[in-house]
């Protein structure tokens, strides 16, 4: 789980953070304006590719994607 969190955190920093802001596992990503609703689609695609899962659209909500911790909980939920 810790490895997954670090992988997701690194991806978020690399793809969506423009400055040197620190991103923790609890940093609000969607409500904090770091990842917008359009970009969420690419984040979802990354998770699906990386972890070979399929996240239903109705589960990919702004609330479920709002932190690294929440995202990893979602990935675990859909990992067989």
């Amino acid at each position: 789980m810790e490895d997954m969190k670090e992988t997701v955190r690194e991806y978020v920093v690399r793809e969506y953070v423009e400055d040197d802001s620190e991103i923790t596992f609890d940093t609000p990503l969607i409500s904090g304006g770091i990842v917008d609703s359009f970009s969420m689609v690419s984040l979802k695609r990354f998770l699906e590719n990386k972890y070979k899962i399929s996240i239903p659209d109705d589960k990919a909500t702004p609330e479920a994607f709002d932190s690294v911790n929440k995202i990893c909980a979602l990935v675990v939920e859909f990992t067989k």
Partner: protein
Amino acid sequence: MSNIISYDERIKNFDWSISEKELDYQPGNVINIGWYCSDRICKLGKADKMALIWEGSQGQEKRYTYNELRLTSNGVGHFLRGLGIQPEDRVCLFMDKIPELYIGFLGVLKIGAIVQPLFSAFGDESLIVRLENAQTTAVITQRKHAPKLRKILDKMPYIKHIIIVDADPAKPLGDREVAFDMDHAFKPEDFEIHPTKAESPSVLHYTSGTTGQPKGVKHVHYSLISQYLTSKWVLDLLDTDIYWCTADPGWVTGTSYGIIGAFSNGVTQCVLDAGFSADNWYRFIEKHKITMWYSAPTAIRSLMKAGDEVIKKYDLSSLRHLASVGEPLNSEAVIWSEKVYGKAFLDTYWQTETGSIMITNFPGMKIKPGSMGKPFPGITATVIDADTFEPFDGPGKIGLIAIKPGWPSMMRTYWRNEETYNKKFKNGWYLPGDRSSIDNEGYFWFVGRDDDVINTGGHLVSPFEVESALLEHPAVAESAVVAKPDFVNMEVVKAFVTLKPGFVGSKDLDLEIMNFVRKKLSPLAMPQEIEFIDNLPKTRSGKIMRRILHAKEWGEEIGDTSTLEND
């Protein structure tokens, strides 16, 4: 009783001088939006009234009275003059929805310079084409966005200053960068406001078309006359209102109604600079007791998706009037909002070029859910035949929306692109590029765009720009971009791509291309779906037939394929 009182009475005796008189403006006089939105409100005795209540994503809050708005925007003007910024120089605002964006807007106008707002999520390619076209002199930004500008600065010799409003004193500034802390800067009590006149340029917003580069829509200070009165009669702004316009001032709604309309009417407005979540939005309404809420169909449908249960957690009884803009508001959303909020969202129709609301539903008027409503008083709008450009002689026929030019906030030209501007007019009508019909009671019903421009979440995306960006990816041989239907955003970007030899379509390549476009242009322009195909449909002359791909996405008839290459 609403401000408009009676639509039917207003249209009988309307003249824009009604707005001029309310603003104490006489033709030929000085008219400066920056002054009208701050100094004038203070002169009316509201200096201590709250103008702006801002809340950040971490819950931090800042408040500015109208006097503080006046003084701080004076400080911006003073600072810019000190840098040598001249009237009509273009000053870009490249910021999130922070107070500096709202106050900077007024400060730039006060010295007679032209505000060029740009959406803070724009990538480097989107920035370059817009700054290059405007030959921008200065950019006001935040340190989080400065890296994007540093990356492209070598290509933009005309930019003299990058003004950073939250510079870190511990870190050195880059080339052409200067720190400016608006809150703590010198704020002159007496500031000489540039004597702009009605036709002096004010705002330069960029908008996308089907082909060619984005166009700079030039507005003038006289636009205030439309923006003030439409805010008063359509948004029904009252002195006691707590107003929330959810639009980003990187786009026209955020400036026409998120700044000019709100402040020229002297209301208190709230701004939430945070990403979307239903809980956070409802909490914000409850906390600030929002009374007038101007939002967008995309947000409304996202709230619908979040469900009715979350609404019960909050007290939203302060809401008295709701309106929507960006793309057509579907009837389900209108009916749902009436059910859950006790008030229906009223749809308003206009665009960057019109500068203010053109066709709309008014407070007190019979609402037909799904309809655009009726023209604002003083606006002559109709539907014309797409072949003859003549108005239809009866109701119910689908044609092009056409508006008689001459209202105060009409764009004056496309920046350095008079040729494209002239093409927007046919047979004495201005054509916004949308299709609709009119029913037997005079209500307009939106049908769709008349071109290939994609309206996603209320923002226009040019397929040409996305296709051009796609072609810069090393794996892409050819591309065609169309709109794909989407419940929340109405439309999203879909790309059809053929690959160069040696590349194979895969999920990883799909993601790589999505991110490539997102960083180059913006998240809005990022294809939400990419389909790898062997060949794109083309005419025998080699032109890509987008309409065939569009029809496939929308489940429509493909139509005439006689010119198709592989037929």
